[in-house]
């Protein structure tokens, strides 16, 4: 596993993957928009507002996926001290937060006309809001300490504690009665979504995943360069200090 934790190796793999990830993002976004806005039918109950689902549902998946990824990277950083794992976790957090935010706002935009309210404090909506706060807390904690290593450690622990929220979000609609509808795609007995509506949903989900890969690579590159910069500057400060003592 350590073989992949080498920053130089990551940079090689990243330069290989990046153009493909960008290509997939552009293609699936274009196709996804075409199908979700134009080439798909209105729902028999929700009418045209079903089109909000093609953003809302994949964004919710990404919110959960990114959090799980962040927790796995944090565990790798805490247990095996992988030099890259911290950077990957830190690079994942803003993407997950962005998707969770999108999920919450688009959910409100769907809820107002369909349910008759922007927001209710039911188990699903509340646990999703907690997920956003976990992301924000993680990002704040990373930068809260003068010693970046301590901030990273504290944030990793928060990420791991917060991971219990992930199954709670997923099963909240089964464990308690909520205003939010139960799962449609990942459920026993196969999805309850017509195939004409499955196409835009899957395309958007792939587009969001590819987008995550693109941003993850960019942010990790920034983190690696930033870390090298810190090391060099630290060495310069030390050298200057030594020169002063000698003088």
């Amino acid at each position, binding site marked *: 596993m350590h073989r992949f934790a080498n920053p130089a190796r990551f940079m090689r793999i990243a330069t290989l993957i990046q153009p493909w990830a960008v290509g997939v993002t552009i293609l699936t976004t274009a196709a996804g928009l075409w199908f979700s806005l134009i080439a798909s039918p*209105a729902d028999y109950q929700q009418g*045209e*507002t079903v089109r909000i689902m093609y953003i809302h549902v994949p964004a919710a998946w990404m919110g959960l996926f990114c959090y799980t990824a962040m927790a796995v990277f944090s565990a790798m950083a805490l247990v095996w001290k992988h030099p890259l794992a911290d950077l990957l976790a830190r690079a994942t957090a803003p993407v997950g937060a962005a998707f969770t935010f999108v999920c919450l*706002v688009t959910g409100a935009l769907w809820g*107002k006309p369909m349910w008759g309210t922007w927001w209710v404090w039911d188990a699903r909506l509340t646990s999703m809001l907690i997920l956003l706060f976990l992301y924000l807390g993680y990002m704040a904690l990373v930068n809260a300490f003068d010693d970046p290593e301590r901030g990273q450690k504290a944030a990793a622990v928060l990420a791991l504690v917060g991971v219990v929220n992930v199954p709670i979000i997923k099963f909240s609609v089964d464990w308690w009665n909520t205003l939010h509808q139960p799962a449609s795609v990942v459920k026993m007995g196969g999805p309850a979504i017509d195939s004409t509506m499955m196409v835009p949903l899957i395309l958007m989900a792939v587009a969001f995943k590819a987008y995550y890969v693109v941003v993850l690579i960019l*942010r990790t590159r920034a983190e690696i360069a930033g870390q090298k*910069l810190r090391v*060099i500057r630290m060495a310069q400060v030390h050298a200057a200090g030594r020169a002063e003592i000698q003088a």
Partner: protein
Amino acid sequence: MSMLESFLAMGGYAGFIWPTYILTAVVLVALLVASLKAARGAEKDLDAIQQTRRARRRNQPES
């Protein structure tokens, strides 16, 4: 009503559907641009600092 008009009207839900797509686009593009800038900026700074170090080493070989 023309095709375009009825498309934009979204069956009367234009006020909910279009903000969904616009907001998502704004958030995702903003994050992408910020990440791109961060990567370019950090890598440029690193290049600059490494070049001056190399140049300094060349100028004063062993002091």
